[in-house]
């Protein structure tokens, strides 16, 4: 009975959080809110707060073991952030799988989750998208990740934090930020289809599915164009000019994809959270699904 009450309270908090998340226009520094992109100074100042949880989404576990930010837990992007039962490789975890992960990591619905990695925020952006898919209200990416953190001579630790499982309750999926193949097919030629892969994959010269090529009409913006050589996001004005040149404007619906939806999440984060575009979706199946299905049209 008591447990049920707490569960309901948590659920209530989630709903309140989700509503607050959609209505407020990301005021940096407002009480209880975190900006979507934080710098090392912000993280250093908030590291000790009990409701701030750091999550290391580095490329390999070895990177985490070698040294990570104080209190950070590790999430394996290849094992923890996918649905292993899905027929398409690399799809987002189900609500149950996601809830189990958050519970295992000891993350509560009210916590602010700060994500970082060693790969120019590639995996952090994928984790960000998944947290938003299940409507977690307070999420941010540490700009520049562990690389910039170290460049600023900030400390790392090899201590693994002791974590007690939480009672996290995952909200239903936010279908407004995800696209399916059927959704895309019905809208081909309408909005913008943004291809976050390399120019070689875009041209069908580097083939990673049964078929090589791109979704008809797709525009190529390699995710690596979002970042500077040191791995931080480029200034917003520069990103806005880049995407505008390629026809991405805020009045259009934009669907991003790549091979498995990881690199696409990076472009999605830029469009939705740095540029503030309202209608941006990540096609989670991406080329892993599109290129392996023979009933879908492609362009080369």
């Amino acid at each position: 009975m008591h447990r049920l009450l707490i569960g309901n309270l948590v659920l209530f908090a989630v709903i309140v959080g989700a509503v607050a998340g959609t209505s407020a226009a990301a005021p940096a520094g407002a009480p209880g809110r975190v900006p979507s992109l934080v710098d090392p100074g912000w993280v250093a100042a908030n590291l000790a707060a009990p409701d701030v949880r750091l999550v290391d989404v580095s490329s390999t576990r070895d990177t985490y073991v070698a040294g990570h930010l104080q209190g950070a837990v590790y999430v394996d992007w290849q094992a923890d952030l996918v649905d292993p039962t899905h027929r398409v490789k690399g799809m987002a975890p189900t609500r149950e799988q996601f809830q189990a992960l958050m519970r295992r990591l000891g993350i509560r619905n009210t916590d602010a989750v700060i994500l970082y990695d060693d790969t120019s925020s590639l995996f952090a952006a994928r984790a960000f998208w998944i947290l938003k898919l299940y409507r977690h209200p307070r999420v941010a990416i540490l700009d520049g990740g562990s690389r910039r953190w170290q460049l600023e001579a900030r400390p790392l630790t090899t201590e693994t934090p002791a974590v007690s499982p939480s009672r996290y309750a995952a909200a239903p999926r936010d279908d407004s930020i995800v696209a399916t193949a059927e959704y895309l097919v019905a809208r081909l030629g309408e909005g913008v289809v943004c291809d976050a892969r390399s120019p070689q994959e875009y041209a069908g010269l580097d083939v990673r599915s049964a078929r090589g090529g791109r979704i008809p009409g797709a525009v190529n913006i390699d995710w690596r164009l979002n970042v500077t050589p040191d791995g931080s996001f480029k200034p917003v004005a520069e990103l806005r000019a880049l995407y505008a040149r390629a026809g991405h404007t805020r009045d259009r619906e934009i669907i991003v994809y790549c091979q498995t939806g990881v690199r696409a999440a990076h472009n999605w984060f830029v469009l939705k959270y740095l540029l503030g575009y309202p209608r941006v979706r990540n096609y989670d199946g991406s080329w892993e699904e599109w290129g392996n299905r023979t009933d879908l049209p492609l362009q080369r």
Partner: protein
Amino acid sequence: MSPVVGSTTIRHPLARLLGVGGAVLVVSAVVARLTAQADARAATFWLFGLAFGFVLQRSRFCFASAFRDLFLFGHGRTMRGILGGLAVATAGFAVLMQRMVPDPGLGVIAPEAHVAPLGAHLILGGLLFGVGMVIAGGCVSGSLYRIGEGYVASLVALIGIMAGLALGAHTWNFWWRASIRGGLVLWLPRVGGYGMALVVTFLLLVGAYLLVIWWEVRQGFRAPEPVPGRPGHTFGDRIHGALRAVLVHGWPASVGGVALGVLNVFVYTAHMPWGVTGEVSRWAVGLLTLVGWDPGLLQGAGEVSGCALVGRGGSLLSHTLTLNLGMVAGAFAGAQMAGEFRLRRPRERRRYLQALAGGVLMGYGATLAMGCTLGAFFSAIPSLGANGWVFAAALAAGAWLGVQVLRRIP
């Protein structure tokens, strides 16, 4: 030179083709087996290496002599072949690059295209390389294919090149900070689209071709009449004649140049344009590390495209290794089929010193220019980068200087 020894020409070229071809197949199978785990591209690039080496050997395609002969003998036979190859590769590269980067104004340069920063480093690199290749009597690719033909001095030149690259690695960070990092990266399609870039490049190639013809006329060079082939009648005569034309007689430089241009488009389609120096620098840095003279972190070398220095790391059995070794093997196979292979030591000891010194100059020049006559020239002009033309001009000036030096060597 390498006269065709009488006894070896008696054997039917078909017999040689089968013998050498069979050996090449066996070795290729071994290479494919050895490298399968380390690098999936290695076997393909071994075949590319064989093809490049074979064409270089059959057509005696030497970039060093292309520049040198203009000034030393007043003819541009090989240079005209190079220009033909550049024209073919330019068209092919443009098609490929346009598919990968349809909008060059977006700020992306086509992946793997050899577009490098301009600056003093590029001009100095071209000058040093030009002098070095004339003194050594062959550039990096020339040395590789002559090793396959049995030239001992070319092996010495390669050692010199590695020494020059090693010196380059130890001074790279200085050049990176002083000139390379701040250099303008000028990719012609970004300025005015692919159409304009193609027009400019073809105009420059035609201009260079006319300049070569004008120079030859001024120097009194007369193009030799083509030797008429023995007309064959029977099926056997025709096959024999065709085999002799391909396997025994040397190819005209124009055929070699165009074949290399076509191969360069193929190899870029497979992965990246033709280049050899990056891999040779990997050997040099690897050896340095073995003897405890590690050059340390090479700042920015990973960011520039083309054949910039490659530091430690990566599997030894890479596709760049098989490309280079394939070139030696392809030249060896070509020489064997023509009956031209034999171990050749220079008559004078001084030639070794020349090869070594020229090699060092080339190695250091290739460090600064981020490539040799292949990476910074033969693959850079078709990449529609301005750096290819700047390097070519410096290379020509360096070759002229080298000829002056050669004339003073008794």
